[in-house]
């Protein structure tokens, strides 16, 4: 306990320096902005800003990028409630009852509920990370190459299971990502692989270019398919404060949502989206008036909003302790850490305690800033919603181009940006999810390295993955997950769940 307070104190001392507060604020501000603006996601934004943060210290860079992430979660709920247009996939659940509330003139309480729930969830999740991450990291220090390989395998399989649509396509996307991740010089032999003889590619494809292409450019192309007017925007928000009755109704949903979100956020693959869905389902099931759900039930806003914010935060746990990203945003964060020369994994906590605890402490500060940013300034964000899309996307293209170029001053990164934009668009259109691809891409080189090391240790004996207990458990878990998604009943249910979402 004393340890915990000491560590959080260290974190506060890092997070509360003027410089870090400033960039934390810039991060959450930018995050809210992109969360509010439909069509710009956190993955593409964080990837575009990677080159800028290279100049910062690692702690400052991570604080700002993390701020963008949970800021976007916040902003996403604003558009979900006011426009029925979730800026973020995880707020699509909020839109169900939040928009109905707004239509009934209760936009204010809905927004306040989302903000309060998120803040509470963010506070709790910060402590969850502080309490559980260090022991997990200590445990993970004992991992050898076989354990790491099996862990990554489990992570990727979970990402496949939780992706939308066809499991086979998602599996293919993971493998495709892994293969593209291998482009460049081989770590062991130094031989160039799949580089088309282009010397600039021997360092591998630029991570930012791939991420921005597949998440940013592809998204713009999708929005250009059909340039329609947006739904009616509710521009007047009056009476922010929830009534006493409202407050009584949201206490338990917020608590339950926070618990569920903290737990599910750690799982690879889904994180905040899964948490929001689970919280909604739970609230609906235990409610005495389930018929109100879908008609503007305040519990349907409180639960999922708390859950997705808690989940967004605890999804940092696997990255910071195991070096395995739980979702595409964490994959980009991993890219940011690698760019800073820090290898994500259990050693971060001991080797860079200022970074680790500073980021955690900044999460709480950032969440507090978000409440202040969002509630009184809601009118400003609402006005932003009236910016037409055709003004936005040229700006995104300009930032994407400069961002991708400036990392290495390499023009091939721009060609990669265009290529992965086109490829990403076509694949998404054909029903493939980009998230498994990005996770595969970022894990590819490490997975290969651990596989090779594991088999060198075992002298080429593949059973090493099954004879070491922890590795065997992880492989078995991966196999079970894979089997479960192919069980007809589960497959049917899975389709139904994702249908509801779209």
């Amino acid at each position, binding site marked *: 306990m004393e340890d915990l307070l000491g560590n959080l104190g260290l974190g506060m001392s890092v997070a509360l320096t003027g410089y870090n507060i400033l960039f934390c604020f810039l991060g959450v501000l930018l995050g809210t902005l992109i969360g509010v603006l439909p069509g710009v996601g956190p993955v593409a934004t964080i990837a575009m800003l990677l*080159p*800028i943060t290279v*100049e910062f210290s690692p702690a400052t860079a991570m604080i700002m990028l993390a701020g963008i992430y949970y800021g976007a979660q916040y902003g996403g709920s604003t558009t979900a409630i006011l426009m029925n247009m979730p800026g973020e996939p995880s707020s699509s659940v909020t839109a169900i009852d939040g928009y109905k509330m707004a239509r009934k003139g209760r936009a204010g309480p809905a927004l306040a509920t989302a903000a309060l729930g998120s803040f509470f969830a963010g506070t709790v999740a910060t402590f969850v990370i502080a309490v559980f991450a260090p022991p997990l990291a200590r445990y993970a220090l004992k991992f050898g190459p076989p354990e790491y390989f099996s862990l990554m395998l489990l992570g990727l399989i979970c990402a496949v299971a939780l992706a939308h649509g*066809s499991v*086979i*396509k998602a*599996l*293919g996307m993971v*493998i*495709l990502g*892994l*293969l593209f991740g*291998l482009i460049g010089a*081989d770590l*062991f*032999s130094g*031989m160039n*692989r*799949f580089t088309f003889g282009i010397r600039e590619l021997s360092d591998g494809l630029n991570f930012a270019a791939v991420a921005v292409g597949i998440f940013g*450019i592809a998204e*713009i*192309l999708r929005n*250009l*398919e059909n*340039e329609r007017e947006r739904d009616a925007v509710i521009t007047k928000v009056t009476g922010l404060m929830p009534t006493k009755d409202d407050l009584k109704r949201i206490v338990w949903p917020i608590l339950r949502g926070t618990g569920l979100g903290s737990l599910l956020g750690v799982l690879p693959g889904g994180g905040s989206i899964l948490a929001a869905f689970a919280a909604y389902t739970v609230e609906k099931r235990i409610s005495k008036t389930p018929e109100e759900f879908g008609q503007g039930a305040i519990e349907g806003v409180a639960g999922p909003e708390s859950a997705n914010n808690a989940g967004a935060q605890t999804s940092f746990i696997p990255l910071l302790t195991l070096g395995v990203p739980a979702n595409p945003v964490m994959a980009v964060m991993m890219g940011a850490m690698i760019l800073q020369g820090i290898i994500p994994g259990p050693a971060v906590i001991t080797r860079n305690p200022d970074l680790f605890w500073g980021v955690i402490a900044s999460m709480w500060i950032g969440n507090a800033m978000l409440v202040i940013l969002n509630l009184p300034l809601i009118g400003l964000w609402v006005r932003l919603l009236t910016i*037409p*899309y*055709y*003004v936005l*996307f*040229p*700006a995104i*293209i*300009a*930032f994407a*181009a*400069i961002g991708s*170029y*400036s990392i290495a*001053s390499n*023009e091939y*990164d*721009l*060609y990669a*940006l*265009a290529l992965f*934009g*086109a490829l990403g668009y076509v*694949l998404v*259109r*054909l*029903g*493939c999810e980009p998230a498994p691809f990005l996770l595969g891409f970022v894990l590819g080189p490490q*997975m290969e390295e651990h*596989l*090779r090391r594991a*088999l*060198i240790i075992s002298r*080429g*004996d593949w059973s090493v993955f099954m004879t070491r207990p922890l590795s065997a458990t992880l492989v078995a878990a991966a196999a079970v997950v894979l089997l479960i998604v192919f069980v007809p009943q589960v497959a049917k249910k899975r389709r139904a769940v994702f249908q509801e979402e779209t």
Partner: protein
Amino acid sequence: MRDLRGLLQTSLHRHDLMVGLIFIAFALYFVAQTFGVVGFAALFTEGFEAALLDADLPVGTARRMGPGFFPLLLTGLLFGLGVILVARGVRATPDGNIQPMPWRGMLFILGATIFFGATVRGLGLVPTTAIAVLLASYASQRMTLRLAAILSVVLTIFVLAVFHYGLGLPLRVYGPWLDFLFGAG
């Protein structure tokens, strides 16, 4: 040309088939790169075992993996998944949304990106950004010349202020191709 577009349009409605073919194409590409020309030919004439010896990227054994081992493992899986999808897709009825392909968007957006890469070194930050934004703007059917020009000017100033003066990125404002106008510098 119209036929080609029609064909593309209809094939987009056979999701599984198309994705399967894409997976197979990528698998073949990575396998061909692993084996090289000689090895890839040997794959068909002499069989897998013999072709392994000719591979450009040594595959090695499980005990001492070469750079070709893991890629080969992955491409095998990818190929298998592609075949499953094709088999499923051939039988399936066409599905999917009837959204038209955003040809115009693809042309201008991808064009702007490639243009940026090709000219940023030669023309420099300012002219390249201005032209790339103009190009990208025209991806939207609602764009007007006036608005595109305003966007281009505003964004170029913003980019110059933030990336050049603010962050000091090592990019020349005007590149060497324009030295004849402004003098070397």
